[in-house]
């Protein structure tokens, strides 16, 4: 069965580093020259690999600061991975609480703005408008400015807009945890509809109950590593067990544990990553090399462009001189 299904998202040794305590100019310099001398880096993702197929509904669980949001931001195209390979077949739509809603505009106006940004024409939007408003359950509030909405109402509006954009890959970041039960049911049935259409959904929630209810696969991300990836039932049980164990620890033990994990994320290195990749049997040698390399910032300006730039500049100075001196 899985051979027939198309791969929607494939990640190989995805990493993301954040530079610790650096000014922006240093960041830019580090980008241009990634192999320059190492300033301390924090590895938010330490090389995670997975494949997600069409029709998959994948839950992502993990404690705060484990790298879930970073992963979602990479999947939605906001951030670029530091290294690794990411293939996404289709358009992604990210849905986070209140994401991209403008507070001064009314709900209706926000629907139009968001849809325009997704490339829809006004005609298409008019045709969809009533469906979106109906689905959102907002009633008269739709003509109120969004700044007067409760967080649940914002989530409803955001969800309604997102699902009506007909996304291939929908990424839901905590957006349903604030909605009420009725709306959650409605959202669930919409997600089942998407699943039947072969769409892929990533679902992040702190509510394990929701993850169990909505998803059939789950990823457990723990301090930058993909700790486990499998059926939701197994992963959710494991995660719950781990949480239980963690909660038995005393406060100082908890703190020590977290510190230790964070230190590991700072201590992780490119050499370590390369070693991990080298041990992977499933990869070809060429691939290994490509994956372990830092993704370079766009090409340097080609000589021809520099030449053109220089010539134009000199030409400009010459003409200014000519004009100024002799008219």
């Amino acid at each position, binding site marked *: 069965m899985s051979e027939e299904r198309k791969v929607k998202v494939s990640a190989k040794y995805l990493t993301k580093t954040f530079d610790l305590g650096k000014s922006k100019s240093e960041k830019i310099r580090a980008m241009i020259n990634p192999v320059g001398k190492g300033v301390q880096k924090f590895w938010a993702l330490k090389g995670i690999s997975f494949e997600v197929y069409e029709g998959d509904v994948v839950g992502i669980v993990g404690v705060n600061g484990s790298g879930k949001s970073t992963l979602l931001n990479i999947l939605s195209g*906001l951030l670029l991975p530091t290294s690794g390979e990411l293939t996404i077949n289709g358009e992604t739509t990210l849905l986070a609480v209140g994401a*991209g809603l403008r507070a001064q*505009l009314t709900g209706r106006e926000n629907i139009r*703005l968001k849809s325009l*940004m997704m490339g829809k024409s006004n005609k298409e939007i008019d045709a969809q408008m009533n469906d979106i408003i109906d689905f959102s359950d907002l009633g008269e509030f739709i003509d109120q400015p969004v700044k007067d909405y409760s967080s649940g109402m914002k989530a409803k509006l955001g969800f309604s807009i997102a699902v009506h954009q007909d996304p291939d890959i929908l990424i839901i970041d905590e957006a349903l945890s604030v909605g009420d039960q009725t709306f959650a049911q409605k959202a669930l049935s919409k997600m089942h509809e998407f699943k039947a259409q072969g769409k892929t959904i990533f679902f992040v929630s702190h509510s394990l109950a929701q993850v169990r209810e909505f998803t059939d696969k789950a990823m457990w991300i723990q301090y930058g590593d993909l700790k486990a990836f499998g059926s939701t039932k197994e992963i959710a049980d494991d995660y719950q067990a781990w949480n239980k164990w963690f909660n038995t620890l005393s406060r100082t033990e908890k703190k020590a544990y977290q510190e230790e994990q964070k230190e590991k994320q700072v201590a992780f290195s490119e050499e370590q990553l390369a070693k991990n990749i080298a041990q992977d049997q499933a990869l070809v040698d060429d691939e290994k090399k490509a994956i372990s390399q830092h993704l370079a*910032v766009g090409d340097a300006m080609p000589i021809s462009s520099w030449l*053109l*730039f220089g010539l134009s*500049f000199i030409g400009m100075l010459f003409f200014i001189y000519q004009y100024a001196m002799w*008219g």
Partner: protein
Amino acid sequence: MKEIWQVLKEQFKYFPVMWRLANYEKKARYQNHVLGNLWLFLNPFMQVATYWIVFGFGFGTKSPVEGVPYMPWLIIGLATWLFINTSFMDSTWSISSKIWEIARMSFPMSIMPMMRTLMNFNAFVYMLVIGVVMSVFYGLPVTVYWLQFFYYLFAIFVFLYACGILNATVTVLFQDYQQIMQTVMRFVFWISGALFSISDRFGVGHERIVRALETNPFYYLVSGVRDSFFGHTWFWENTYPMLAFWLFTFCVLILGSHLHLKFRAYFADLI
């Protein structure tokens, strides 16, 4: 060259999106104001009134054109300057302030500066029409030279496009750029020729300085738009300033497209 082409292609490919967004934002801009879109006119006309009183009455500035009073001459120049200046400054923050809203959208960020320009275009046209109608009322003849306006309009758009890409990109990388540009533009205003003819101010004996000042691209555009209505020469007769202007624009375009493509994937990391 490839980079210029790539960014340019994005502009055309996503022009419908850009157009619709610009129209929408225009509507939303003054939505919460009691006077609404009237501000679009009130702002520039208060400026015209101020400069007219200070320069027209106070300093007794005359328009260099025979038969045309200072007021319409000022309106046409100031309309052009305001359009260029507003769009130029808007482009600096067009990406950096909206990054969270636009980074995940299905259009490239390179269309944002041009979208800002489109938003300001209406106000420019209305003000220009008022200036021209006024001049005709005072007896300005309609000539074939008026067609040049379309050349200068084209030049304004290319110039704003090139500067827009560069401004928007550099502001993301280097926040102070916006403040620097604000200061620079305040100075440029006085040599843009929007308020008075530079050569009249300097008088005889300073022709070389005057001409050097007049090669700045802002003066080229502002005086160009004026010349299309008041002048009796074709734009290609003004050879050296024309070449200097286009070479400058081309330099900015090379630099802007290159930096934009090089860094745009990292914009979210940098803000």
